[in-house]
């Protein structure tokens, strides 16, 4: 078992308040990359630039918009919008109780269980510690001009209530802020 992962699990278990940042994570690197399967799995602290560099070797690319390649993929995921969500295949997280959980995987079609891997896109570090993400990648020739996605606040009271309750599901002690 990955020692940094265990350290982070302990950290979460022992903390009463935690602000997630890439520097806190200190967890980076490409875990698996199968070009013929169009899939890459990376630790959340890996910079987007590094991922792109790796993909370029096989003439492949990420198919979502990024304006800053220096940020980590975890940060992009936490702030992410539709275009990023569209290519997420799986995610491994540490929830607010320090439990390491795995949702989704490395295959494009997967409807087993609720789509937590996409639910947490845009969770802004408030629900769980994102540890590892798997993405579908594309041959570079298939990627046209990428534009910034549109994001709007959903003002419905019910929507906000549901988001609040979902935070409690992943972070029952309310430690991520």
């Amino acid at each position, binding site marked *: 078992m990955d020692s940094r992962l265990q350290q982070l699990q302990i950290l979460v278990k022992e903390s009463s308040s935690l602000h997630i940042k890439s520097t806190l994570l200190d967890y980076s690197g490409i875990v698996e990359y199968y070009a013929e399967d169009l899939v890459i799995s990376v630790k959340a602290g890996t910079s987007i630039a590094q991922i792109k560099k790796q993909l370029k070797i096989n003439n492949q690319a990420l198919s979502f918009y990024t304006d800053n390649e220096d940020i980590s993929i975890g940060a992009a995921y936490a702030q992410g919008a539709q275009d990023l969500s569209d290519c997420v295949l799986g995610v491994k997280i540490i929830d607010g109780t320090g439990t390491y959980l795995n949702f989704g995987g490395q*295959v494009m079609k997967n409807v087993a269980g609720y789509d937590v891997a*996409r639910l947490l896109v845009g969770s802004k570090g408030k629900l769980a510690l994102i540890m590892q993400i798997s993405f579908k990648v594309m041959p570079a020739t298939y990627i046209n001009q990428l534009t910034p996605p549109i994001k709007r606040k959903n003002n419905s009271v019910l929507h906000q209530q549901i988001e609040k309750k979902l935070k409690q*599901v992943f972070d029952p002690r309310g430690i991520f802020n």
Partner: protein
Amino acid sequence: MTIVNQLSRAFPKGIVLTSKENTRPFECDGLSVYRQKPLAVVLPDDIVQIKQVLKICKINKIPVVTRGAGTGLSGGATPLEKSIVLGLSKLNKVKLIDVENQLAVVEPGVRNIAISEAVAQYGLYYAPDPSSQIACTIGGNVSENSGGVHCLKYGLTVHNVEAIRMLTIDGDELILSCQDDGLGLLALMNGSEGLLGVITEVTVKLTPNPAFVKMVMAGFDSVRDCANAVTNIIKAGIIPAGLEMMDSFAIKAAEGFAKVGYPLDAKALLLCELDGIQTQVQLELDNVLKILSGASTLKVSESEEERLNFWKGRKSAFSAVGTLSPDYYCMDGTIPRRHLADMLEKIHKLSKKYKLRVANVFHAGDGNLHPLILYDANVTGELERTEEFGTEILKLSVDMGGTITGEHGVGVEKLNAMCHQFNTQELEIFHKIKHVFDENSLLNPGKAVPELHRCAELGAMHVHRGELPYPELERF
């Protein structure tokens, strides 16, 4: 007053079906091995009536099973004991077509293909195309996150839904858009199998018809060669619009119905569709033909009619297998593409072990397998053997790094297999998510996510770092 009486009183004639005779045809969906008669079937005409049904069910604490066309293959719409079936087939209007933004707003009972038909005049179509697209409804597609044969390039339902309106069990309306800031609630609803809400309206994204389409049909003398060809096409940097494979059994069944000229002597058949602008398609086509040069038969579609014919065989393959065997059991595991050939060989071995024939029809491009296990439900014990066989295939899928279901959903059918794919803590998260939306567990309860004790009984539970989770639970 019983709930059946309450419902009958609340609605005009013809909306509530209560007699045994009339509710029995609703006892199963496309997976007819699971059957359960509901207390009543309600076929509302509008959203106000849906709200009323939910209200009555909530007061009486009676579960509601939402149903579209009942074409699902995992028992997602199978009624539960003492439940109400809420059929949305009458809500079948295309409300708005927004050509400029390439969107269509439709009611949940609109058939998948009806959307494409309605927007065809604008040169648009709705991309996800499950084999049952002729009959299945968009509400069901969202609930199951349906795939199809064009997912590789154009995505699943989740990638093609712009927004939905849904009702919670409390009858409150929730509008979710893919532009919402914050959590991916819309994505969560896709594939939630009717456990979180009742979808009342879907805004789908439309795709412009490709300028140029070509289809290659290649027959192979060996399954492995065919599987390798799939990998090689993707490796070459080509994303076909569709990349489908069938084995000899499936080829024979499909050809028998559709009569489209599939090579009957081939061990495996590959259908590869390329679309886009003409120059690019031509380039890719040349490339693909080079990759497929080892095929025993190789044919490129020469007309639109021929291309559609090639698809017709593939799309009717499932049901056409019905001509070879009185019953079949359709699996839906997905594996990383690189393991395709190994998986097929293993299935072949298992077929001999269980003495059951298997026809393989699958979305090779995205590693989504559909082995159809042929059996006879009238022969005692054959269904049980079939299910055992199926479970082995699903376990293999998970062990290869894939999933138990790519696009058909868990429903009632794959509950046991879920215990193999997820550990207790993960399943618990799923239960808590359900609880956020549906505290009293009234929406399609017991489907999609297994109860923890079920997994414990199965003994298929993940053991986390040597500790057994929930030591207090009895294990059998």
